[in-house]
């Protein structure tokens, strides 16, 4: 009853092509937007921003990026951490080289640079597939991390080898550096996430997205019906890396402020983002949000439960966290290979009939 297409008449092409064709979805979208933009910034405090909201928003951008490549185009990548590092270091170099330019432009440019690097590492995907490609992307991961560690130019010859985000302002409000207010951190990440998600959603509905999905489902068949695999795969790599680069730039400049490359962007980060899209749902933008929220919240919830409530040592809880995440991955792959997004889809099917099941 509540959730249905019936009665929602479209009278123009514009209405038929809108991002959320179903009225219920549209209402839900605007309510979510209203809460995210108008309520949370006023109630957010430092703990909630740093432990939950900012990492969630940033990982959601990375998950959208990886989901475009893996979920929509079928190319498994284990190089997400490396590409995030490219975004972070590109952003750092731009911030220090052109201090007068707005950081928003720097972050977008960092995404662009990452897109170029991603497309370059995507070139082998034209020859190699499946696992072979997954392992080949590890080359990107290890090479990029090594590069940012060894070449002093990337971290401006600082003695510690770290990069530190200088203070930058957007519309007179500090968004990076030590004096940033929690709501400012939250807002800049939210704006980027909203724009990225809308772009991603509309890309995947259009020609480009369909050619990606054709490649994912059967690349040879796709080639025969006229999809250019070179174009489809490289655009998937570029677009995916663009989002991943933006998330890396935000992760460094807004969230952490200071970054040591091996620690922040190591192989673990690649797996974390991969897990997000598996748990959330491959090939679904909603799944990126669900997966990112789940994997950001899980350690926090476990920590609250284990350390604060039960009084267990921190390292024990960290180990339990590994066990639970690992078990959940296997559980989801067995029971629900399409992830949380599929649960949401099923819920919507039920809503269509509710409250009269027949």
């Amino acid at each position: 009853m509540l959730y249905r297409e019936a009665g929602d008449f479209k009278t123009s092409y514009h209405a038929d092509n809108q991002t959320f064709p179903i009225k219920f979805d549209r209402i839900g979208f605007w309510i979510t937007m209203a809460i995210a933009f108008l309520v949370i910034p006023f109630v957010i405090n430092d703990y909630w921003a740093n432990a939950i909201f900012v990492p969630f928003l940033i990982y959601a951008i990375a998950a959208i990026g990886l989901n475009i490549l893996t979920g929509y185009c079928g190319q498994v990548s284990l190089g997400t951490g490396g590409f995030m590092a490219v975004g972070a270091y590109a952003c750092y170099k731009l911030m220090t080289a052109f201090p007068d330019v707005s950081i928003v432009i720097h972050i977008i440019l960092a995404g662009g640079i990452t897109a170029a690097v991603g497309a370059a590492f995507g070139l082998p995907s034209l020859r190699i597939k499946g696992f072979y490609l997954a392992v080949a992307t590890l080359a990107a991961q290890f090479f990029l991390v090594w590069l940012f560690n060894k070449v002093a130019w990337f971290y401006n010859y600082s003695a510690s080898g770290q990069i530190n985000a200088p203070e930058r302002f957007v519309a007179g409000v500090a968004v990076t550096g030590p004096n940033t207010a929690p709501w400012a951190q939250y807002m800049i990440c939210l704006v980027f996430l909203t724009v990225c998600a809308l772009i991603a959603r509309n890309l995947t509905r259009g020609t480009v997205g369909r050619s990606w999905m054709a490649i994912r489902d059967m690349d040879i068949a796709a080639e025969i019906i006229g999809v250019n695999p070179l174009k489809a795969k490289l655009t998937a790599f570029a677009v995916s890396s663009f989002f991943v680069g933006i998330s890396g730039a935000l992760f460094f400049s807004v969230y952490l402020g200071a970054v040591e490359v091996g620690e922040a962007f190591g192989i673990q980060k690649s797996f974390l983002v991969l897990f997000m899209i598996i748990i959330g749902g491959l090939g679904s933008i909603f799944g990126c949000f669900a997966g990112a929220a789940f994997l950001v919240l899980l350690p926090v919830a476990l920590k609250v439960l284990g350390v604060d409530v039960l009084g267990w040592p921190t390292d024990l809880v960290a180990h339990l966290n590994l066990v639970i995440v690992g078990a959940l991955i296997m559980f989801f792959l067995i029971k629900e290979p399409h992830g949380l997004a599929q649960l949401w889809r099923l819920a919507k099917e039920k809503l269509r009939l509710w409250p009269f099941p027949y």
Partner: protein
Amino acid sequence: MSADFLYGIEVIINGLMAGVLYALVALGFVLIFKASGIFNYAQGVMALFAALTLVGIMEGQVPFSHLINAIFGTEVHHFGWEVPALLAIAFTVLIMIGFAWAVQHFVFRHLVGQEPIILFMATIGLAYFLEGVGDLMWGSDIKTLALGLPQGGSLVVEEWTAGLGGDDFYGFFIDKLDMIATIVAILLVASLIIFAQYTKQGRAMRAVADDHQAALSVGISLNFIWVLVWSLAGIVALVAGVMWGAKSGVQFSLSLIALKALPVLMLGGFTSIPGAIVGGLIIGVGEKLFEYTIGAPYLGGATENWFAYMLALIFLVFRPQGLFGEKIIERV
């Protein structure tokens, strides 16, 4: 002969020995991949888990003592006995077989017929799970593996080869442990080949690797074979874990050797045991030589982190199925 040239040879010999260890890990991958089509990312963590278990049993640690202490407020750590190495190895093998059964029974039996990439991601989940369980069971501190294996450079080899060069050459420096690892690896490979060629189970294993359906129709139990290959992979992991653990201590970084084994596999081909060995040797020698000739002098060192992947990547672009892999035939 000039000293530089001799040092180059020493680098190659050391690379060969490192390569043997890579091959040892890669072997575990190939076994499982051939028989079940599962690309087992957890192989490295299995090596870590096996080594942790071995140390834990030998020292008489109470499993899950950390967790028990946290829940019940007790202070248990050790049983107070020490188990001799051979007995401990036997126990560890039993545990790895139990693990193989559990993995097959609870996870991969339910995933039969899924896409390979789904299976691969499931093994990543398995790796996390096993890493967490290993830490919970035995604690996450670095442990030393006291099996009484000799350590340090071999003086005999050093003196014996010192005469090859001039006054500034002091002979080849070769770690005794590496020599033992090489011998063990050769023995292990030989016994695996004998097992696969001459025993009933080994033949059944190869039959499954060739064709699941045909193997089923002649009465081979797929479930049994899969438990068997996971057990074998567990034993190979134990050997690899012991060798690496004796070298650098039993710690988390041990599980990262799995990542090193991946380019080895890509080079050698996922389905070939000789490929795993040759690939391991090529990667071992390649990364040491690259570090010695180009990496350390010009690029600031530590190129070993990525060289293997780059080599495999470039290699794959020209030969996508690896050196010895079966030709990839794609059908629509």
